[in-house]
């Protein structure tokens, strides 16, 4: 039982990182932009938040740092950093109409480099690898409040997380309502399905694409921040974990068939699948890798299933990955 609870709480923590990445990417892809820079954007979100919090805490002195202020600074910096990544991607693919796949992959590579570069710089400023600490800010992210004190395992399972875990669920619900129930969401879907049609209907395709991509990047970036502040408790580790989770986020978008509500439970499932090997006794280093493969296998299975069922509602936006130019003939 304890082990099951342990798997589930790990699944929620990891799932939340993936969920942020995927929710942002769902919003972006709904506009027809395929941003493979998600892992890079999560890196940018993580490092920007960390830099902001670190500068604040060292600036006022660790003893005087207010957790809430650090938290707000970290979030603002994370959003700014990741949205800047989204803006670069938007400018290249929407305005200059570069190939989205290549641009996205490049963004991931360059952002990983930037993040690890500044991660190294911070380490040096802090006096060595692993010395970075933003304890006050991180404590705000990891602050928990139980509503069912003394319920034992139930309590551990549902109220043992920082606020960003719940924020992810709220964002998923808000996104779902926006995309499916509002007229602006309808316009966004039209842009992703058929930009020429949207354009002829008087929708500003460029504006929708820019906004969806930049806001989507902001949401994805929060995933990186959550990982840095909550999971590794406010330091930097250049172990490539953010990138691995970022790719899982891209896979999750497909797994959830571009539906943010479906993204909630499937993110937790992904989180469970990618840590399952930890709880299976007797695995060697190499057999572990087979288990780490599970989320990707699940994604392929969903792709197959969806392509067999051929439900139009489960397909990617029809113009995903294509540039739009009104006067093209």
């Amino acid at each position, binding site marked *: 039982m304890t082990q099951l609870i342990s798997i589930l709480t790990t699944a929620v923590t990891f799932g939340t990182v993936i969920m942020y990445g995927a929710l942002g990417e769902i919003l972006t892809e709904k506009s027809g932009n395929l941003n493979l820079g998600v892992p890079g954007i999560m890196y940018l979100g993580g490092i920007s938040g960390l830099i902001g919090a670190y500068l604040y805490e060292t600036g006022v002195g660790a003893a005087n740092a207010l957790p809430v202020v650090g938290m707000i600074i970290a979030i603002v910096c994370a959003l700014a950093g990741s949205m800047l990544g989204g803006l670069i991607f938007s400018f290249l693919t929407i305005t200059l109409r570069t190939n989205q796949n290549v641009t996205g992959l490049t963004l991931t590579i360059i952002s990983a480099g930037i993040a690890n570069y500044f991660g190294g710089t911070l380490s040096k400023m802090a006096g060595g690898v692993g010395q970075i600490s933003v304890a006050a800010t991180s404590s705000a992210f990891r602050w928990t409040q139980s509503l069912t004190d003394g319920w034992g395992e139930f309590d551990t399972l549902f109220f043992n997380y920082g606020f960003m875990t719940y924020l992810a669920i709220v964002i998923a619900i808000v996104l779902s309502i926006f995309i499916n*129930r*509002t*007229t*602006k*969401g*309808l*316009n966004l*879907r*039209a842009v992703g*399905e*058929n930009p*020429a*049609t*949207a*354009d*002829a*209907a*008087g*929708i*500003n395709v460029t504006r929708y694409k820019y906004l969806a991509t930049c806001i989507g990047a902001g949401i994805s970036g929060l995933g990186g921040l959550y990982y840095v502040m909550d999971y590794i408790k406010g330091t930097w580790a250049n172990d490539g974990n953010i990138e691995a989770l970022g790719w899982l986020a891209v896979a999750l978008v497909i797994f959830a068939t571009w539906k943010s509500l479906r993204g909630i439970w499937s993110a937790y499932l992904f989180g469970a699948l990618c840590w399952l090997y930890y709880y299976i006794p007797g695995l060697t280093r190499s057999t572990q890798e087979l288990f780490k493969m599970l989320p990707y296998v699940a994604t392929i299975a969903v792709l197959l299933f969806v392509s067999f069922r*051929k439900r*139009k*509602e489960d*397909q990617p936006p*029809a113009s995903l990955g294509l540039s739009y130019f*009104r*006067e093209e*003939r």
Partner: protein
Amino acid sequence: MTNEVAVQMVDITKTFGPVVANNKVNLTIYRGEILSLLGENGSGKTTLMNMLSGIYFPDSGSVFVDGVPVTIRSPKDAFNLHIGMIHQHFKLVDVLTAAENIILGLNEKAFIDLKDVRKQVAQICDRYGFVVNPDKKVYDMSVSEKQTLEIVKVLYRGADILILDEPTAVLTPQETQKLFHVMRNMKDDGKSIIIITHKLHEVLEISDRVAVLRKGEYIGDIATQLTSAQELTDMMVGRAVSLNIDRPQCEIKRECLSVEHLSVIDADGVKKLKDVSFTAYGGEVLGIAGISGSGQKELLEAIAGLQFIQQGGSILYSSAEGEQPTQLVGRTPRDIKRMGVRLAFVPEDRLGMGLVGSMDLTDNMLLRSYKDGASPFANRANPRNLAKTVVEELEVVTPSISTPVRKLSGGNVQKVLVGREIASQPSLLMSAYAVRGLDINTSYTIYRLMNEQKMRGAAVIYVGEDLDVLLELCDRILVLCAGEVSGLVDGRNTTKEEVGLMMMHLPNKEVEA
């Protein structure tokens, strides 16, 4: 028709790179009239209308609506001026319902509320005689339903000036009549309608006035009742053109292809062809008529070895009189070629199946011959000569034979494809929608080439959509309906109505309730 001017376009010029699409075009549209905009392909009709509907922006010139100078920068501006366009390629989102498509981009409310939309759509439908189900998804709709939805969508936005770009290209004669009926209702309601088309009989039937464009220049306008098909063609082409399609009698007549009990099921398990049997003779043009998607594509592909044919089907090919026929079922296109079957295929999707868009003329010619000979290197000399010959003989307009074919206009692409196919001296020539999107001049060139092959003794199978052409060009017409043969008629003594009915009903079959 009143004399009240609705829209005036003055000295409109639009260029795309070095190409001048419209050169100082002037056009006046009156309230309550149906105006036909006539012109060959590339004459700039659609470009001109796209500028009125905000898709393109003119390089110079001015537009007046109700006498007031206006700037139309986007489709939204056009809607605000009550101008709406129904594009040739429908602008609808497949996965949305009719009602959702209608309110696209309007942002009348923050949350989607379709109650009022349904009510208003019902009102519009009652007024003009449409039928639209607001909750049907677009991907479930037929072509004519989609077109109706497009018109309703434009009317919902309060359009008084409607532009229809080639609206009848995809409709059956009966559906076209229904559309014309609606257009007359709208005209009686005071709306101005501009119809872009190159079907002359439709121009004469529906419009009050005709405006002609040629090579981006405005030639003039004329009241429809004062003109004739011949005069309009001459205006359009710029010189006298014979409008009759030849149907020469060929002395040679031999059985070339015998198809029996052919059934084809597609990848989704849908039956596309059901027990089709017919014979094609050398020295004749066999027309195939049917609503698009009735199995024409599958039939030609089955013969070319590109479809999986169900058990019991047989396609026998004989190259010459008295020779043992060859069975084509179960063969790949490569087998068929290797067996010496001289089959030429001009598919519907020119740049998808027929040619490679990013390759030049020579390389596209090479596609048919690169496996010839034993050398590991491809012989490029012969294809290059062939490309030169095709360019000269068919008057292909291209900067050079090393230009990628996708940069050529639709008509020139088709000439390259047809030229390559007939260069192989086929004994069976199959073509699908060979003149789709081509102008009158090029179309007649294609008809001439088909007839030449027929006179050589080749069997020509011509899948077409324009019934007038089928009736004039073909010796016999095979009519397909939902994958079955619904009739085989003689092109010389049938009528459009007869073929039109066959396209929609199978003989001796109760309509399933």
